[in-house]
C-alpha cells in the first residue's frame, strides 16, 4: 500500500494548521526552534491522520505532548486530545536480567543437538531484532503481540512515506523559490 494523494492532502492540511499555531510566535527565529516546531507539527499531523486507531499514533501524540502540550491540544479537537493524552497502555515490565538468568538455567538442563542449537540461536536473533524494531517504532514497548507489532510497523511506514513525500515537495518548492 502506497501513500495515496488524499492522505497527502489531509496531512498537508493538518500540518499547515499546526504551523499556523506557531505563526503568532514569530519571534522564534532560531533555526533549531523553527525546526522543532516544524517537526512536531508534522508528527502530530501524521499521527492524527489515523485518529487514534493505531498504537503508534497514540504513542507519538503522547510523546509530542511532553514537548509541546499546547500544540497538541490545539491541533486535535478537544475531546480527542484529552483521551489521547491521558490514556496509557499497560506496559509489561520484564526485568531482562532476571529473565536472562532463568533462561540460562533452563538451557543448561536441556540436552542439545546441533540443529536445536542453531534453531535456538536463530530464534534469539529474531527476538533481538524484534526488540530493535520495538525501539524504533513509537509505542513499540506496548506491543507485546508480534502480530500487532508488524501491523503497526506497516502502518507506520506508510504514514512516514506520506510525511516524507509531502515535506520533500514543499521543501523543494521553497528552495526553488529562494534560489531565484
Amino acid at each position: 500500500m502506497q501513500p495515496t494523494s488524499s492522505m497527502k492532502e489531509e496531512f498537508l492540511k493538518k500540518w499547515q494548521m499546526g504551523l499556523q499555531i506557531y505563526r503568532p510566535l514569530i519571534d522564534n527565529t532560531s533555526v533549531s526552534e523553527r525546526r522543532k516546531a516544524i517537526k512536531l507539527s508534522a508528527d502530530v499531523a501524521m499521527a492524527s491522520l489515523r485518529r487514534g486507531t493505531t498504537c503508534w499514533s497514540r504513542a507519538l501524540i503522547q510523546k509530542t505532548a511532553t514537548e509541546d502540550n499546547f500544540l497538541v491540544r490545539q491541533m486535535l479537537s478537544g475531546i480527542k486530545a484529552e483521551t489521547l493524552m491521558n490514556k496509557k497502555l499497560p506496559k509489561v515490565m520484564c526485568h531482562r536480567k532476571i529473565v536472562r538468568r532463568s533462561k540460562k538455567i533452563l538451557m543448561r538442563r536441556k540436552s542439545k543437538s546441533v540443529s536445536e542449537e542453531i534453531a535456538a540461536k536463530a530464534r534469539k536473533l529474531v527476538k533481538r531484532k524484534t526488540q530493535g524494531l520495538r525501539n524504533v517504532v513509537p509505542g513499540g514497548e506496548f506491543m507485546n503481540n508480534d502480530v500487532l507489532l508488524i501491523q503497526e510497523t506497516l502502518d507506520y511506514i506508510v504514514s512516514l512515506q506520506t510525511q516524507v513525500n509531502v515535506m520533500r515537495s514543499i521543501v523543494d518548492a521553497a528552495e526553488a523559490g529562494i534560489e531565484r
Partner: protein
Amino acid sequence: MDLSGGFGARSGGGVPFREVTALESLHLGGGDEFRRMVPPENAGGFTALLELPPTQAVELLHSSSSSSPSQPTLHSLGTLAFPSNSVLMERAARFSVIATEQHNQNGNVSGETTTTSSVPSNERIKTEPAETETCDQAAVEEQNNRCGGKRKDFDKKVKSSTKKKNKSSEESEKLPYVHVRARRGQATDSHSLAERARREKINARMKLLQELVPGCDKIQGTALVLDEIINHVQSLQRQVEMLSMRLASVNPRIDFNLDTILASENGSLMDGNFNGTAMQLAWPHQVMETEQSYHHRQLQQPPPQQWPFDGLNQPVWGREEDQDLGNDHNSLMVGAANLHPNQVKMEL
C-alpha cells in the same frame, strides 16, 4: 477481491442452507468458481489453503446479515455442495479454519481495528461446519488440481482428517474461532493449532512488509528482513529530520507562509508531478506577487499563470480549498502583514 464480477449474478439474498436439491446442480459450475477463487493474495502453500476456507466460512457466518461488500461475492458459494452427512459435519467441526481476523486483516492492512465478527447463533454453527468442510474439500481439491505436486499432501491430509475424526476436541466454539486443517504428523491439540494460526498470520504480514520495503524481496530469513525494516524506518525518520531542518533554514517567513500559498496550488504538489523547471519559473512569480500585493489582494485568487502547467491536477479542488482557507488566513496574515513585505523584498 476481484471475484464480485463472477459471482454478482448469483448472489441471492438469503438462500437457506438446507435447500440441497436446487443447489446440487450448481455444484458443477461451482468448480470453476473455486478455481478462480483459489489464488489469494498470499500464495504460500499452506497459507493459501488457510485463506480459502476462511473466506468462505466467514461468508457462511455472515450469510444472514449480508451487509458487507466483499462477502456477498462468496455468498453463493456457501450454498453449494451441501451434504447432510453428520460424519462430515463432525469432521468439519474439528478441522476447518475460520480465521475471521485473518480475513478482516487481509482486507484492512491500514491498521483498522479488526473487530471480531458477530457471534454466530447456534443454528448457524450446526449448518456452517458442514458447509465449510465440503467447501474445504472442494477448495482443496481444486488447489491440488492446480498444483499437481501437492496431491500427495492432499491425500495425506484427507487421511489424517479421517484418522482423527473420532478423537474429540473442543475446537468448535461459538465465538470466532480458528479451524485448522491438521497436517500429517502434526499435533492437533488446540495450543499448537492456535500457535500455527498465529504463525501464519505473522508470516502473512511479514510478506506484506517485504513488499513495502524496497529490496526486501530477495532476502531470505526473518532476521535479515527485520533488519532491513528497521533500517528503512530509521532512514525515513532521519529524512523527516533533514527535511524539517532544511525547511527551517530556508527562510523564517516563507516556511510559515509557504503553506498558505501552497494551499492554492495543492494539486500540483500532491500528485508528485513536481515539474521542477516549470515550478521554478512560476513559483517566484507568485511569491513576489503575493508579497507585494499583499494588502490589496485577497488570497482567494490564485495567480493565473500557475494553472497552465498542472493540467492533470484538480484545479477545482485547489480553488475550493483556497476559498475555505482564505477566510481563516486573512485574520492571521494581516497581523504579520506589516513585517512581511519589507523583509521579503530585502531577501528577494
